[in-house]
């Protein structure tokens, strides 16, 4: 780790890049959903390489299994079931359950 030359701002820049990629994914999704999925992959690659955590709000906008960018109501179904929020990816069918907690407003 230490041997590789690292830029001091790399994590900050990485976070900005992740945010712009998700913003672009959102912007472009209506016309080119495939690009959005590609941008998610890019963002994940950056996050992994720089070991930056993707913010929770963004983490819930892509599918854990197929990495599709999710637009609720379009390619993702959101339902309340048994006190949990169930998000179904309509591309691969993967269901992700989120608990509902009071102080937690991550959606």
């Amino acid at each position: 780790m230490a041997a590789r030359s690292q830029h001091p701002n790399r994590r900050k820049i990485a976070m900005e890049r992740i945010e712009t990629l998700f913003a672009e994914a959102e912007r472009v999704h209506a016309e080119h959903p495939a690009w959005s999925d590609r941008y998610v992959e890019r963002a994940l690659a950056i996050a992994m390489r720089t070991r930056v955590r993707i913010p929770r709000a963004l983490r819930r906008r892509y599918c854990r299994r197929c990495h599709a960018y999710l637009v609720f109501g379009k390619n993702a179904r959101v339902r309340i079931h048994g006190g949990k929020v169930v998000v179904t990816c309509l591309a691969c069918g993967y269901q992700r359950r989120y608990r509902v907690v009071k102080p937690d407003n991550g959606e």
Partner: protein
Amino acid sequence: MITPQNVIRHELIGLSVRVADSSNPRQIGIEGTIVDETRNMLVIMTREGQKRIQKRYATFDLRLPDDTRVRVDGSILVMQPEKRTGMRIRKLR
């Protein structure tokens, strides 16, 4: 913030570009938005469709979100996009 100092380490997808110079004269002047990036290529969405430009042999004029313009030699961008963050002690300009 994306600045002229950190463009080469920042995200290029979404920026407007113009190909300022290229070893292929037909590519000079191509204008549009960057929609994808690979190790060696930039994919630019123009009015006439997508154009894939090799980074190595071209120079790009990038327009940043705050409307400043930067000229970047494509050969220093030749690297996987996720690797660009973090690396490198700055080269010229």
